């Protein structure tokens, strides 16, 4: 029984006190959770990013002639990173806010490019091919079971109708698109419900495992 266990136990009780009503202990537990998480993130960012990738290479500016290629590369990245960070911080001041436009644009552009490329190559195309192949029993790897075929067809229908529900949300209810959108919304309701149920069950699992540890602490096996 270490200190961490008892802190955790106390925080658990504080959170469970919300069953009665919102109280100070519950709020305290929430603030501690958020604060600790933010602090840990800052600590990790400093130790894992800023220090090794910015603060460490910058002194090499003083000895540019003796730098190796790797060190020079690290230094270049460090300088650009520092400049970008400074420009991004300029957004806090109205007069020089325009300086952060380039940094923001670079971040958004690179992130969008990476995300779009990955989505296209990693999800859209492979998943589309896989969905088509799963319906063709002649394709190797696809299931020959009728049930699987029906399940695949159901999955295809659910996918298409869900897309129609989002794209044609203003369609008339009695039109074809309206009916298809209604079916898609039904599938979405089921999916969202299943997701919530899984989250709830996962929480139950966590609670069960934690209570096991608490029980073992208070009631160790063998006495």
């Amino acid at each position, binding site marked *: 029984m270490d200190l961490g266990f008892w802190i955790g136990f106390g925080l658990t009780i504080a959170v*469970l006190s919300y*069953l*009665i*009503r919102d109280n100070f202990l519950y709020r305290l537990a929430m603030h501690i959770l958020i604060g600790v*998480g933010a602090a*840990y*993130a800052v*600590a*990790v*960012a400093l130790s*894992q*990013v800023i220090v090794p990738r910015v603060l460490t290479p910058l002194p090499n500016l003083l000895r540019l002639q003796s730098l190796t290629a790797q060190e020079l590369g690290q230094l270049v990245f460090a300088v650009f990173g520092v400049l970008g960070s400074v420009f991004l911080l300029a957004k806090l001041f109205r007069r020089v806010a325009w300086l952060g436009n380039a940094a923001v644009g670079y971040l958004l552009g*690179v*992130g969008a490019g*990476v*995300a779009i*490329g*990955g*989505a296209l*190559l*990693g*999800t859209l195309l*492979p*998943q589309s*091919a*896989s969905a088509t192949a*799963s319906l063709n029993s002649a394709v190797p*790897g696809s299931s020959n079971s009728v049930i699987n075929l029906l399940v695949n067809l159901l999955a295809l229908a659910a996918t298409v109708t869900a897309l129609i529900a989002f794209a044609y949300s203003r369609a008339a209810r009695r039109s074809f698109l309206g009916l298809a959108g209604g079916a898609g919304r039904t599938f979405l309701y089921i999916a969202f419900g*299943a*997701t919530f*149920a*899984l*989250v*709830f*069950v*996962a*929480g*139950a*699992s*966590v*609670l*069960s*495992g*934690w*209570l*096991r540890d608490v*029980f*073992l602490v208070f*009631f160790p*096996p*063998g006495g």
Partner: protein
Amino acid sequence: MNYCPSCGTANRDGSRFCNECGHKLPSKTGIICPMCSHMNPADNMYCDNCKARLVPLGPTGQPAAPAGASPATASSAAPIKKPLSLPTKPAEEPAPEEPDTPPESVAQPEPEADEPNWLVRLRAAAPKPSEKRPTVEPPAPQPSSSQEIPDWMKPAEGEVPDWFQRLAEPASAQPSEPESVQPSEPEPQPEEEGLPDWMAQLRPAPAAPSASQTEEEQAPDWLTTFDTTPPASSGAASEEELPNWLKGMSAEPEAPAPAPPPPPSMPPPAAPVAEEEPDWLANLRREPLETSEPAGETPDWLMAVEEPPAAEAPAAQPAPAEEVPDWLMGLRGPSQPEPAAEPAEQVPDWLIGAREQPEAPPAEHPEAEAPDWLSRLSGAPEAPPEQAEAPEWLMGVAPAVGGEPPAPATQTPAEEVPGWLRDFRIAEPTPEAPAPSPATPVSAFVGERAETEEQAEVPDWLSEAARPAPPAAAPEAPAEPVEVPAWLRDLGPLPAAAAAPHPEETPFGEAPAAVPGEFPEWLRGQQPGQPTPAFADESGRTLTPEATTGLEAATIPSWLQALKPPEVPGEAVAAPHEAFVETEGILAGLASVLPAAEVMGRAQGAPASRNVGIPAADLARAGVFGELLARGALAPTVIKPRQVAGSRVGDVVVRVLIALLLLVVAVLPNSLGFASSFIQLGEVDAGLYKPAADQVAALSEGQHVLMVFDYDAFQALEMRPIAEAFLSHLAQRGARATLVSLNPTGLALADTVLSRLPEEVALDVVLAAPIYYPGQAIGAQRALLDNPADLLVVLSGSPDSVRLWIEQVSAAGLHTPIVAGISAGALPQAQPYVQSGQVRGAVAGMVGGLAYQRALDPDLDAGDSGLDRVVRTESVYVSQLAFALILIAGMIVSLITGSRQAG
């Protein structure tokens, strides 16, 4: 918007027809702003241009609702159409006032662009304020345009028609006195195109070049058309142009017709002005008419008057009885007998009467040969007027030519004399006539106004006309022959018997007994000075002026009384509205305009009427409402939600009980250890871990594995067995793993997992401390490029992280196999990647992790640690099952209670 008056549909501006019903649309429907004259839609409350209020406030201060609108249908009904409002002059626009300029500039402002045409014409026709109107104004309706006023009616600039002026002169006056003519300018000739052709042909031939030319220039056309020359043989051609009632008149021989007596309504002629007086008129007074007449200029009816009877009969065309007026009948000369073929009604009596008087020498009494009215006009002694035939009002105004003042008995009753005529009482030009009497017809138009201060403005011609003609004035022979129309020539001197006219004779001839309606019987037999006898109306009733209520004295309206000039001479009394000249507004410069200030002032000063016609029932309800307010029954009260003391405790109890239930369900299996009798952990489906285990088993010693820890702290308990199983299996295969994370908390979780492994296992597998890569997708790509691996193990509690790593591997062009350790909740969304082959294998949830560990070490369940693992696993299963059951029960209870509340 333009709203259809038929269906109320709103149409675009400029539409001519309604798009809904096709009805023709007015030019514009809307409300014209009274401030800026901007056209606004009908439903606007404020002007779009100047923001002025368009809809007036009602008596309660609220906008007045349009007629027929109801609050319920205000939003759904068709747009409310409001009437157009007349444009008014903006308040800020000052009136053009210049002190240095004469008042005319103020009275005559520039016509605005939006002024109606009638107003512009009125303004142009309005006399300047400095001008003084003539005293005498005929009570005729004011013409709308100055162009429409005949010149002979306009005594403009003090000019008097010469013919009229000459009529006022005595008969002995020389006809040729051009100097006495006041205006040197010829009077503007009236438009001849308005005259019928037959009248246009009646143009007297000029007796003297200079005189006649001047006469024609100054005399009106309708008088100049009375040509003195006898008609030629072109009567046939003229007959075509004559009206039918004139065609019946037989041609008269070109005999010198005596000058007809002047009409009784005309004043005694003043000093004749020969060059300005029509010849025929001059000859009427002085000498016989000439016989010469240019051919083709005299219509047949005049020819019939002049030619001998023998020629008259064949040439005459019998005219319908109703087309020959009596006054014309009487104009026939004495030399022409009545044609036997003509019906009696075709020959005017006055003309017949004139024919019967050929004996009178025209030289002595030229006026006596003419009808009485004409004889009176010339001032010559004439026979007593046909007072028995003429209406009394006329007789009262125009007594005998001799200038005798009418007897008091001849004064017509007030109700029979028109007011406008009554006012024009005869002036008293001479002391011999002490009482102002209407000695002459012309003087009747003078009236007492001549005695007022406007007397100085009375034209000379009119004042002279008021002068009674001297009885002793004898007509003198004119110095030069004057052309007289043939029909006047035929009149000749009145016979002696004409002095005492037949009682039935009228100034216009015999009483047309056969023509009913022209003169009522009561008027025919009326004698001057006699009271109005009883008469019979159309239904045969005998009526008397005193007996009939309709003939009783009528009440003179106040506006008419206001027109009556004051009796006190020299006092100028003008109607208020006549003296008022508008100086501002769109009516600026116009006279006879009702003073707007008085009216507006009265309206402003008047208190607003509170009588809005509220029904009695509404008033009663309002009274009840007022009583309730007075009592305070309707005082506003704060409605507080009903608080039940027990409801709050009950809610807490329910929540606590549910929580305890969940806790018991979670703890009880762990405590009692009976879960193993329900669940056999060995029977876990191998599909939950085996594909992934096979991928790890395919690794050889020394290969590199990139292991990702992307799950949160609350998922740590579930993901820890999975992580431990992977690390243990990697250790068994001799592979090396690099631990990375895209979240800062992943590093701590990785350390937690490593701390639970045997130390030798951790040191053999893990190469270095976990590394944090920020930027999500960018960090993942960076981690893949920095750490090339033979296998990618993604430990994620959400499907998004799994998808992100899968996508970046594809985007980077790597072909690294991917295995995933995901939570039970994320498995459904990650299943497509597993089925598509992008993820070679996946370990799902705690059960899969425990099964993966048992598969690696079958002896792991033995001992206390084994039991712990079993109980823990079974407790999870039981807890999950219990939680699901509790959730379902709560949903059912909620549906039941909700349906009860809705019902």
